């Protein structure tokens, strides 16, 4: 098992693109930076796809930094889960950059925008690929700080306030992550996840390791905006620049999910039962809290952000059930949701960019139907179907997998509740469609001016095409998810591939 350069390329291509774009200017006329980033995004997406194909065919791939053997050196591991999430992140990144190229937002013409965007992606991919807990923390913090800076320069005038809120709360989460990692290091004398898993599987549990598990769980729940830790999320995701809020609401919240999956399948397999009971409870509360809040909110982007809380609830519910099929359903759900939610947020951004003042508040955008190109409404309709889980979109596949896994497990009541909340999704998505894209208000009733040009719909169309494709041809994704779960339920594969010294 040699070093595979693809594992490191997926992290360093966005990084070097970000550094390289700093050399060029970025204005509305000179878009060199954005085109360079687009090239970087395409390369990242291709690399991630190649990596996924290789991982599925030949098993997990590793890269030892500096050729030092773990647990002494830092190792990057791409197993099925990491590679699948990497493809998800890199494809949505490509969509985000595609949107940025023609985006009219003022913050897009700042020279720091694209580099920060790429650094955020570096943090994201790095956190997914690393096999070392401390490196995970560093990449996590890179992601948080870049996204905070990007929200602070947002066009939305509440940007700094949301950024301030997020950096304080997320900083708290990061502190607990670091404390948990330090406690793990104090207990096991290692930072390598495979080494820790090996020691956790054989030895007894000191109190410090258990409290470390609790701290890590809390930190991951905070990062993925699960119900009691959700309060920063709608503000942050609403005020972010559109390409970024598409990334945040679809991919960045999944890093916490990734951490939780690693926690219950690799590290704390014996305590998994207790963590999973908590996840089921939080998941059900999250589904209803998210859906009802989305129903009564005042802003289109905020509605989608609340909806993310509900969708993350579904994923947690599936992880909580813990059966192999349910875990596969969670992975399928996480993967599919990323494309749907990012495209919907971009569509809201497209609508907001057509009016002045630029805002997605319903009091501004209601009744715009007929003033907007029909394609925006059409794409919103398709995206709404996908989010609510109507065939033939990929949302249907994920909802079906959730319901199927729950029924197999005999969990009737949660399944009925979960499917019932799909009706809520349908309600808020199609009420928006009616009010924004169908209703035709008279010009004097509108509180906004309509601009002749706005952002292009190329990026949401691209992402929705992927989700339609995943809905019509779901077999590969389901197969990969099933194989992923087989791999996850057998931690010795992960431990073996890392190649611990003397192990």
């Amino acid at each position, binding site marked *: 098992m040699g070093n595979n350069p693809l594992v490191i390329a997926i992290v360093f291509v966005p990084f070097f693109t970000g550094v390289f774009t700093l050399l060029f200017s970025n204005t509305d006329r000179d878009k060199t930076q954005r085109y360079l980033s687009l090239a970087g995004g395409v390369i990242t997406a291709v690399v991630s796809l190649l990596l996924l194909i290789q991982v599925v065919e030949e098993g997990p791939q590793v890269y030892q930094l500096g050729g030092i053997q773990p647990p002494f050196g830092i190792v990057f591991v791409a197993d099925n889960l990491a590679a699948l999430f990497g493809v998800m992140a890199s494809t949505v990144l490509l969509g985000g950059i595609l949107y940025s190229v023609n985006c009219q937002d003022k913050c897009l013409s700042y020279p720091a925008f694209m580099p920060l965007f790429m650094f955020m992606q570096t943090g994201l991919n790095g956190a997914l690929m690393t096999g070392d807990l*401390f490196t995970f*923390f*560093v990449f996590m*913090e890179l992601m*948080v*700080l870049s996204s*905070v*800076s990007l929200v*602070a320069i947002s066009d939305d005038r*509440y940007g*700094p*306030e*949301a*950024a*301030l*809120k997020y*950096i*304080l709360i997320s*900083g*708290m989460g*990061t*502190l607990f992550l*670091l*404390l948990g990692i*330090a406690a793990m*290091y*104090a207990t096991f*004398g290692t*930072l390598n996840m495979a080494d820790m898993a090996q020691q956790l599987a054989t030895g007894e549990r000191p109190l410090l390791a258990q409290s470390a598990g609790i701290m890590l769980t809390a930190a991951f729940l905070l990062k993925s905006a699960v119900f009691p830790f959700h309060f920063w999320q709608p*503000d942050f995701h*609403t*005020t972010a620049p559109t390409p970024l809020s598409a990334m945040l609401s679809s991919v960045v919240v999944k890093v916490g999910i990734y951490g939780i999956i690693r926690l219950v399948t690799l590290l704390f397999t014996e305590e998994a039962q207790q963590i999973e009971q908590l996840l089921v409870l939080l998941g059900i509360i999250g589904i209803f809290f998210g859906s009802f809040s989305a129903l009564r909110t*005042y802003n289109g982007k905020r509605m989608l952000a609340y909806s993310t809380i509900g969708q993350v609830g579904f994923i947690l519910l599936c992880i909580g059930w813990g059966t192999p099929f349910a875990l596969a359903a969670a992975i399928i759900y996480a993967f599919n949701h990323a494309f749907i939610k990012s495209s919907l947020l971009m569509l809201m951004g497209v609508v907001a960019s057509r009016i002045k003042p630029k805002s997605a508040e319903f009091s501004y955008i209601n009744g715009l139907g007929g003033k907007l190109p029909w394609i925006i409404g059409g794409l919103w309709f398709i995206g709404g179907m996908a989010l609510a889980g109507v065939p033939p979109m990929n949302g249907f596949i994920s909802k079906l997998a959730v319901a199927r896994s729950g029924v197999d497990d005999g969990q009737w009541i949660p399944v009925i509740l979960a499917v019932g909340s799909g009706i809520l999704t349908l309600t808020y998505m199609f009420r928006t469609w009616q009010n924004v894209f169908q209703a035709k208000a008279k010009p004097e009733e509108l509180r906004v001016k309509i601009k002749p040009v706005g952002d292009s719909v190329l990026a949401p169309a691209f992402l929705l095409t992927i989700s339609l494709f995943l809905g019509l041809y779901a077999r590969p994704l389901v197969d990969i998810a099933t194989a992923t779960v087989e791999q996850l339920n057998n931690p010795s594969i992960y431990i073996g591939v890392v190649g611990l010294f003397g192990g």
Partner: protein
Amino acid sequence: MTDLLFAMAVGILFAIGVFQLLRRDLIKAAMGFSMLFTAINLFILATGAYQGDVPPYTTNVEAGRAVSDPLVQALILTAVVVSFGSYALLLGLINIASRRYGSVDSDDISDLKR
């Protein structure tokens, strides 16, 4: 003795940090944030640096004497850089917010809440 002192220092710093972080004054909250990071850095230091008293990477270690753990210091170095970055960013954001809202009280900076 060192263990006890370390434990007390970490505990006191942590307590003050959490208390300050919950204050309404954002500048105090930022200071609490930095104190919490310091407490955790001390905690990391306590996990390994005093296991032995011989400097690492030296030859001729006498029998019966343990070598100090160098990794924790590398970890703290990284954590200090990270915490410094986020602290600077946090203070910058407080600066922007205080100019825009004319206050550093977190109750006044709440236009998003409605």
